[in-house]
């Protein structure tokens, strides 16, 4: 190599090395690669899962979900149900806000009322709308009274309510980019499409965090995330595609962790349109689909067949073998189709969104499977906003594929989706018996009675094949060996970050 090339090249490499060493200071910084921008970090403005994850970390809630998706204490040490409308929460007395003030019951009241304020306006408000009044009993006791008995409120309070300080709202107007919470890490900087930087909060009420700093790098492209992870530019990366993760399992420096996420693939059949108005046709389609094969082909065995409640919601989900047609049965499918007057099948369309390419892959497998009983599906791929418009605003589809997080209370799996009066009943399902059960599930506070109601609902919905539930998606987090004590939470929450350490 000629000298005039060599010298600058070595100089460049040396310079780069110096820069690399200089940046890796003594601080323990964990770098996490995520795929989606949170868009808005205000606890009153969360509109998708990624925002929820950040808010849960920066602005802890009264209760939180453990890895089995059960509710456990967080800012509240306990709660008591005084009557079927009144929940009394006892708060910890050692919770410090990031700006250095103890959290009191007034802050809980403030946070709830801000989310419910029509001038804010919050996409999360519906979770808390059943609340009639928040009564501050003393600094560490708060009573939440609902308008009517409403069992899902506990989940609303957990998922939709990050406790934030009124001072922050006064100072910044809204908390999009900055605000004071009580989590183990405080928000330092959020640069949209780029990075969220958190720093250790020394007065955290839980165990002292081991990391000094956490950086969330927003890397939408999965191969780029993989490259960054392998290069050591990031320490942890999240994925939802089994095939993107497969090559990482062979990398000796990486651990691939996965759990079933409370996120299921809903195959919507529009009951407003023939032939999907006929329950026999819908059940035939459910029989014709081979969920095991989908789990193997698309998810390389990491997914589980799912009913209306995903198996990861261990408290509520019924085993799928108790539901009709969860084992593929082509003969039954043909019989049902013949009974309904479609012995040779029919042709229709299936809409999916390019935002979730895995959904489309499942759709392609299902298309082949349905073709075996003569149902010819044409797949139509649309962009996310377009899909929301077809699916939620206009109900303009024959069949439609979409995954969504259904975690939280099972009410989210039924009430919103199947109650005849719900604005979110996209398939147009109408069954008075189901409406009645849903209404009772909300007013029944007792767990065992509620459990029975949801068992009945799961059986009716699958028997009628109101919608076809396909599989529960796996959720992956892949981390480098230096990362210690990592826990992969089904909802992708990072509650455990206070325990995580780096050993370089």
């Amino acid at each position, binding site marked *: 190599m000629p000298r005039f090339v060599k010298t600058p090249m070595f100089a460049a*490499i040396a310079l*780069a090395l110096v820069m690399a060493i200089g940046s890796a200071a003594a601080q323990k910084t964990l770098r996490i690669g995520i795929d989606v921008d949170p868009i*808005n970090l205000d606890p009153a403005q969360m509109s998708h899962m990624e925002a929820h994850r950040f808010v849960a970390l920066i602005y802890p809630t009264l209760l939180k979900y453990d890895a089995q998706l059960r509710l456990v204490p967080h800012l509240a040490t306990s709660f008591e149900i005084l009557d079927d409308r009144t929940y009394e929460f006892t708060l910890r007395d050692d919770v410090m806000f990031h700006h250095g003030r103890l959290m009191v019951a007034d802050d809980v009241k403030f946070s709830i009322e801000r989310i419910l304020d029509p001038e804010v306006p919050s996409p999360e408000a519906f979770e808390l709308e059943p609340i009639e009044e928040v009564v501050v009993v003393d600094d560490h006791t708060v009573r939440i009274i609902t308008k009517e008995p409403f069992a899902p409120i506990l989940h609303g309070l957990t998922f939709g309510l990050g406790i934030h300080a009124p001072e922050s709202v006064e100072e910044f107007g809204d908390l*999009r980019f900055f605000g004071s919470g009580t989590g183990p890490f405080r928000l330092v900087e959020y640069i949209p499409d780029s990075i969220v930087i958190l720093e250790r909060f020394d007065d955290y009420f839980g165990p002292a965090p081991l990391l000094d700093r956490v950086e969330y790098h927003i890397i939408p492209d999965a*191969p780029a995330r993989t490259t960054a992870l392998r290069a050591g530019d990031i320490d942890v990366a999240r994925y939802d595609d089994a095939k993107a993760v497969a090559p990482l399992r062979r990398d000796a420096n990486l651990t691939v962790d996965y759990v079933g996420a409370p996120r299921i693939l809903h195959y919507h059949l529009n009951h407003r349109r023939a032939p999907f108005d006929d329950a026999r046709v819908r059940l035939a389609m459910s029989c014709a689909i081979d969920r095991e094969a989908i789990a193997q082909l698309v998810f390389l065995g990491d997914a589980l067949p799912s009913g209306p409640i995903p198996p990861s919601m261990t408290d509520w989900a019924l085993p799928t073998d108790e539901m009709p047609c969860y084992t593929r049965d082509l003969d039954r499918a043909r019989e049902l189709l013949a009974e309904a007057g479609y012995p040779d099948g029919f042709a229709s369309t299936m809409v999916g969104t390019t935002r979730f390419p895995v959904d489309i892959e499942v759709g392609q497998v299902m298309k082949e499977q349905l073709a075996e009983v003569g149902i010819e599906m044409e797949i139509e791929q649309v962009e996310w906003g377009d899909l929301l418009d077809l699916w939620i605003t206009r109900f303009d589809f024959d069949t439609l594929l979409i995954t969504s997080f259904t975690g939280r209370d099972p009410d989210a799996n039924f009430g919103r989706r199947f109650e005849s009066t719900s604005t979110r009943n996209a398939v147009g399902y109408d069954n008075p018996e189901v409406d009645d059960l849903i209404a009772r599930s909300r007013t029944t506070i007792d767990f065992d009675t509620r459990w029975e109601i949801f068992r009945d609902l799961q059986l009716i919905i699958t028997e009628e094949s109101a919608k076809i539930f396909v599989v529960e998606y796996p959720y992956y987090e892949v981390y480098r060996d230096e990362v210690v004590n990592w826990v992969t939470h089904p909802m992708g929450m990072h509650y455990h970050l206070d325990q995580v350490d780096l050993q370089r």
Partner: protein
Amino acid sequence: MLTFTVRRLLAIIPLMLGVILITMLLPRLIPGDVVTIMLGSESVVSPQRADEMRRLLGLDRSIPQQYWDYLTGLVRGDMGRSLRTGQPVGPLIVDRFMLSFYISMLAIVLGTVGGVTLGVIAARYRRTRADLFFRIFNLIGLSVPRFWVATLLLLAATFYLAGTFPTVGAARADASFLERMRYAFLPGLTLAIPVAAVLARITQTAMAEVLAQDYVRVAHAKGLARRVVFVKHALRNALIPVVTEVGLQTGFIFGGIVEVEVVFSYPGVGQLALNAISQRDYPVLQGVLLVITVLFALINLIVDLSYAWLDPRIRYE
């Protein structure tokens, strides 16, 4: 020259009015709006409440009214606020544009220097065996998709140049110039390759044409060194089509920025525009498209003006 420049600058104004109108109408034709997307798939919100949110964002006003408000805002230097994040659009675009500017600048500089050098060399060795390598480079440079080159460079940087060039993100606002270039280098190089290929080919052809002219033969006959003839006499005259092409390629670079920014997770204006489309964030999208249009018009003006410098026979009156 001055009148020409002023006339061309004034011509940008009707262009802007048209572009604003189009960028205002087109995104609104895509189904779904910012509220639908903000509410996402899990919220349960009554249509009345959703309309209330639209009203708070000013989306309930008629399109002519929104057009007028936007124009009067522009005159005051106000490009509106992002519907999604509430940030003022002007400063947001400036920040992101600076980041993309580093990439495009690198791409233009690397592409032009590389392409012209290669073209001159190729002209020198035309119809020899070395020409074959040039043709192969040309073919590959023109036909390989940018996202693929980007991914390859990303892998190469990771496994062979670990740490030299960052593979994720952009330099922070307070970083040094060198640091900014370090982040912009790989995306810039990705975009430079096709530019270099196009320019090399054009330079080669133009050079071949010029080299066949009498005055070049005279220069050779005078006994000037070959290098002097090539660079001083031939190249300058061959540059006119090249400069035109550099101007056009700048436009293609803006187009390519979206791709490379996604692959390198580089938060420039390309990602900003892409996200604005998917979020139906009209003011941001309008702002980005407007700025790109104006820039493109200005670049073309600069290209036209540079002809006069390159070829004294060209005069603008």
